[in-house]
C-alpha cells in the first residue's frame, strides 16, 4: 500500500485521523500529516449562532413564499405552493421578510401610497439594508393617519380585535405608529402587538370563538413576533438590545405554552396552523411532505361486505411518533400499521363517496400537534397486509376549525 492509500486509511471513512500507533512505521511517518488534519477538527464542531440560524430560516421561507405566489405550477396534479397547508397570512398583515417590518398592509392604503415600489427579494442576511418608505412618504402618511384618526371610523377600529372587519384598519394605525418610531421603540411596539395578539388568541380559545378570530390572532402573533425579532436583531449590541432580546425570549416561551395548551380544544385546521406556529417557535413538531394512496390488490372480505374501498396510505414527513393517527380530509380514520419518525403507513376503508375526493392527508401526534399535505400521489397497488391493533378514533373534539 503506498503512502497515499495508507494516509487515506488512517483518516478513515469520515476523514477523522485515527489515534497514532507507535508500532506502525507508516503511521509514524505520516504523523505530521495526521497532526495537520487534527488542526482542522475544531471546524468540524463549529455551529452557526442560534439566532442567526433562526432568522435566516425565517427570511428564506419568506423569500420562497414570495417567489411561490408568482410561480406557475411545475407539475401536473400538484397544487401550487399558494395552496399549501402552511398557514397563510391575512392580506393586511406585513410579511416577515427581513427589514420589512415597516411595510404597510397594501390593500388598506391610499392608492398613491400603494404605488410605491415593493421591497426587493431578501438577500444578504447581514450586509443588506432593508427597503423602507422615504421619510417624506412616512411623514405624509403619518399626517394622513392623524387626520383619519379624528374620524369615528378609526376610533371604532382602535379597539377592533382579530376577526373583526375593522381589524385591518386597526393594523394600518399600528403600522403608522411603528413607522414613526425609533428602532428600539419599533421592537417594543411589535412585542406589544404580539402580546395583544396572544391575548386575543387566548380569548378565542376560552370563548370557543373558532375561525376567523383564532386564525387571525394566530397569524398576527406570528407576524408580530417575526417583526419584533427582526427589529431587535437590527439594534446595536448593548443593554437595550439585550433587554429586548430577553423580553422576546420570555414572550416566545409564553407563546409556546399558550399554543400547546390551546391544541386540545381546536378544530383540525386550527390545530395544523398552531402546530406550524409552534414549529416556527422552535418546538419539535410533525411535518408532512407528501402522501401516497395505494390500492390494495383484491378486496378483503370485511371491506367488500360493507361496500367500502380498501386502500393503503403512506405518509412521508418527519417528527411522527408512536401513537400517531391518520387524518383524511380533516377526519381521523384507518388503522395505523407502522410509524417511524419519517413514515406512517395505514390501511383505510374509504367510503365510495370519498374515493377520488381525498384532498388532504395528515397526521396527528398524541400530544395534539398535527400536520397535513395536499400533495397526494396515487401509487401502484399493494398486497393486503395484516391489520395491526386498531388505532382508537374518538370523536374529534374542538370548536370552529373548518378544514
Amino acid at each position, binding site marked *: 500500500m503506498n503512502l497515499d492509500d495508507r494516509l*487515506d486509511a488512517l483518516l478513515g471513512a469520515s476523514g477523522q485521523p485515527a489515534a497514532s500507533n507507535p508500532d506502525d*512505521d507508516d503511521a509514524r511517518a505520516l504523523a*505530521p500529516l495526521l497532526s495537520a488534519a487534527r488542526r482542522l477538527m475544531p471546524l468540524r*464542531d463549529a455551529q452557526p449562532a442560534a439566532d442567526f440560524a433562526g432568522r*435566516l430560516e425565517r427570511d428564506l421561507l419568506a423569500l420562497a413564499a414570495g417567489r411561490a405566489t408568482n410561480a406557475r405550477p411545475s407539475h401536473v396534479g400538484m397544487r401550487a405552493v399558494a395552496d*399549501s397547508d402552511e398557514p397563510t397570512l391575512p392580506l393586511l398583515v406585513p410579511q416577515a421578510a427581513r427589514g420589512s417590518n415597516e411595510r404597510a398592509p397594501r390593500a388598506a392604503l391610499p392608492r398613491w401610497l400603494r404605488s410605491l415600489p415593493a421591497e426587493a427579494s431578501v438577500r444578504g442576511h*447581514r450586509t443588506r439594508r432593508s427597503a423602507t418608505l422615504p421619510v417624506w412618504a412616512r411623514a405624509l402618511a403619518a399626517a394622513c393617519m392623524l387626520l383619519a384618526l379624528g374620524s369615528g371610523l378609526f376610533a371604532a377600529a382602535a379597539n377592533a380585535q382579530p376577526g373583526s372587519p375593522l381589524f385591518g384598519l386597526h393594523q394600518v394605525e399600528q403600522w403608522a405608529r411603528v413607522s414613526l418610531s425609533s428602532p428600539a421603540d419599533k421592537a417594543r411596539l411589535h412585542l406589544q402587538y404580539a402580546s395583544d395578539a396572544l391575548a386575543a388568541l387566548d380569548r378565542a380559545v376560552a370563548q370557543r370563538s373558532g375561525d376567523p378570530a383564532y386564525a387571525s390572532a394566530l397569524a398576527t402573533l406570528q407576524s408580530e413576533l417575526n417583526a419584533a425579532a427582526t427589529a431587535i436583531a437590527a439594534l446595536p449590541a448593548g443593554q437595550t438590545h439585550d433587554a429586548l432580546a430577553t423580553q422576546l425570549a420570555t414572550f416566545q416561551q409564553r407563546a409556546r405554552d399558550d399554543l400547546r395548551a390551546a391544541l386540545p380544544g381546536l378544530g383540525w385546521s386550527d390545530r395544523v396552523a398552531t402546530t406550524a406556529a409552534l414549529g416556527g417557535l422552535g418546538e419539535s413538531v410533525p411535518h408532512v*411532505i407528501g402522501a401516497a394512496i395505494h390500492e390494495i390488490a383484491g378486496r378483503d372480505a370485511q371491506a367488500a361486505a360493507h361496500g367500502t374501498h380498501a386502500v393503503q396510505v403512506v405518509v412521508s414527513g418527519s417528527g411522527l411518533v408512536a401513537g400517531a393517527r391518520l387524518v383524511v380530509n380533516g377526519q381521523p380514520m384507518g388503522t395505523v400499521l407502522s410509524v417511524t419518525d*419519517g413514515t406512517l403507513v395505514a390501511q383505510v376503508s374509504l367510503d365510495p363517496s370519498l374515493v377520488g375526493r381525498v384532498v388532504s392527508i395528515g397526521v396527528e401526534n398524541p400530544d395534539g400537534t398535527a400536520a397535513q399535505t395536499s400533495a397526494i400521489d396515487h401509487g401502484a397497488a399493494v398486497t393486503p397486509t395484516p391489520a395491526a391493533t386498531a388505532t382508537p378514533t374518538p370523536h374529534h373534539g374542538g370548536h370552529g376549525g373548518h378544514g
Partner: protein
Amino acid sequence: MQRLTWPPELPFSLVLERARALDSTALGMLYRRFLPVVYRFALGRIGEPHAAEDITSETFSAMVEQIGALRAQDELGFSAWLLSIARNQAAMLIRRKQTRREQFGELPEARQPHAVAEAGDPLAVLTARESLSETVAALNRLTEDQRAVVLYRCVLGFSTEEVAELLGKQAGTIRALQFRALASLARLLGTNPDTSPADVGAYGVRPAASARRRGRHEPRR
C-alpha cells in the same frame, strides 16, 4: 461530528421534488440539514464567523432562487450543487476583501468562533482563535483542488469516494491531492517536528526507514 445523512425512510428525492416547488416544509428540512455543512465550509474558507454567516446566507438565498432548475436527484448531487454555490460565494467575498486590502483570516475581538473553545476560559478562547486563524491562512495557501479535498474530507466528513463524485475526479486522484494537501499544511503549520529540506522526501514526509525522534518540536511560525 456525524457526517450528514438523510433518514432512510424519508426519500431525499421526494423532499427535493417538493423543495423545487418551493414547499416551505421541504425547504426548511433541506436548510436545517445542510446549514452546518455550508457554515463549516464557509468558516474553513474565511476563518471569521461574521463573514461565514454572510456566505451561508448568500448560499441559501441562491438555493431558494435556483432550486427550481436543479437537476440533482440524490443527496450527494444536491451537496455538490450547494457547495459549489458556497465556494463561489466565498471566492467573491475573498476577492472583495483583497480589493479592499483588508487583512484576511484574523478574527475581530467581538466575535468568537462557536463551539471551538470552552466558554469562560479566556486563554483557551484566545488560543483557539489564533489556532483557527492560522489554520485557515494555511488552507488558503493550498491550491483550490487541494483545499477542496481537505475541507470535504477532514471538515465535512465525506468519504474519498464521495469527494471524488463531488469534484468529478477519480478516487486515486483525490487520495493524491489529499496527501499533498496535508503535507503542505504540515509544513505551513509546523506540525512536522523535524522538517528541514535535507531530511524530507518530495512531499515533506520523512521516510520511515530514516525516522529520527527529537525531544522537542520546532516552534510554530
